[in-house]
């Protein structure tokens, strides 16, 4: 039986790994390759690595780093950051990455998904949706370029569009909950979940394994992604890589199966 995935999400900034709070205040948490090695030992379900400099600085993806990450990972890897062309996607998949995630390109190169799908297939194309609450009513709206550029588009509408173009997965990220560790944003997830039938992973807010348990209890098959939860320990946010053990994972899921 297929089970929900628990996915650490790592952010690359100036060649190191960082963790942000509400997309700001990057705190150094370690070296990318060493961190992947630790996650290998912990047998994680999947990893997301996002280069948070690439799109903002208009840089191409760092193929050297991607190659090293892909070779090191004993689990599936999804890469995000700075992807704008089909050639870049072919190259990254050719380096042994399972999935690429597109964010700002969804707006800048609207036909990129459909063209990329012809080469690498839907299953390797993830649409990343960074959402922030805006206005007096706090309605959800998509932002790009590390949460700086407002698009005025609703997350559910972007998700539908990505599904129609052939994306294979939605990675929904709550900027408001990023690094806050107070639980996932159910209102946001509900909105997008109702709009599409694609597999979905959600990010932003997980502060404990119990938050993951609640998420899975509510949504069943879903990807539970988190950053802070897997790299920080305790209220002083000491850097310590951690991840549920296989038996802890089974306990988290047994309630839903």
């Amino acid at each position: 039986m297929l089970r929900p995935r628990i996915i650490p999400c790592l952010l690359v900034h100036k060649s190191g790994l960082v963790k942000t709070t509400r997309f700001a205040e990057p705190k150094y948490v370690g070296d990318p390759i060493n961190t992947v090695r630790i996650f290998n030992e912990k047998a994680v379900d999947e990893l997301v690595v996002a280069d948070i400099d690439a799109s903002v600085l208009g840089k191409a993806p760092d193929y050297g780093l991607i190659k090293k990450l892909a070779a090191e990972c004993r689990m599936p890897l999804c890469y995000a950051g700075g992807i704008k062309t089909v050639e870049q996607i072919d190259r990254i998949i050719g380096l042994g990455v399972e999935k690429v995630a597109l964010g700002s390109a969804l707006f800048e190169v609207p036909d990129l998904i459909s063209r990329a799908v012809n080469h690498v297939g839907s299953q390797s194309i993830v649409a990343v949706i960074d959402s922030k609450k805006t206005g007096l009513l706090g309605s959800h709206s998509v932002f790009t370029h590390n949460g700086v550029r407002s698009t005025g588009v609703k997350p559910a509408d972007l998700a539908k569009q990505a599904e129609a173009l052939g994306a294979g997965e939605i990675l929904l990220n709550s900027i408001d909950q990023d690094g806050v560790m107070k639980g996932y944003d159910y209102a946001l997830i509900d909105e997008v979940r109702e709009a599409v039938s694609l597999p979905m992973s959600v990010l932003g807010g997980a502060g404990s394994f119990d938050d993951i348990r609640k998420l899975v209890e509510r949504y069943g098959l879903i990807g539970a992604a988190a950053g802070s939860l897997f790299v920080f320990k305790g209220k002083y946010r000491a850097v310590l890589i951690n991840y549920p053990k296989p038996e802890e994972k089974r306990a988290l899921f047994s309630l839903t199966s």
Partner: protein
Amino acid sequence: MGVTVVNYGLGNILAFLNVYSRMNIPVQIASKKEDLARAQKLVLPGVGSFDWAMSQLRDSGMREELDELVLKRKVPVLGVCVGMQLMANASEEGQLPGLGWIPGKVRRFSEGMLKTKTPLPHMGWNTVTPKEHPLFVGIDRPEYYFLHSYFFEPESADYVLAETEYGIPFASAVSLANVLGVQFHPEKSHNWGAQLLRNFAAL
């Protein structure tokens, strides 16, 4: 006993190299037909759409040599993901003919055939129930990483090596004599995958 990973521009070549290197099993990459000459075991990886993968394999210049090795010299070959799907006669995903090493067709999971509402692609860790076979020896409660929307439907149940449930039961591994294929990614499936790749090298 070494393993040769066929590099036609698609798939996790480096991941296979790393898994085998860690286990001290000799491993080489074949990127052109000369590299295949002394291959004893072949891994055929692959990601992407069916036609794209078939055309990349054709353009690599290795297609004919692979047919020779697999069909005439009976060299064991392990197809992975799309590399497994290429071994069929055809795919609903494309127009090009497949390698035809195991009679069958690659089909898309469609809403009509699924008994439960299941999103596509089939993505994540799922249980695999194998028949008794050296490829799965010593693997306890096998779980593997899947990432696909199409599956191999062999012409005969005899070619089904392992079964997995996703809306319907489907062949998550196939075999016919020296030709083996797995729909999941052993190179990205922790120890369950490493043991399977070790078993393949020891066939």
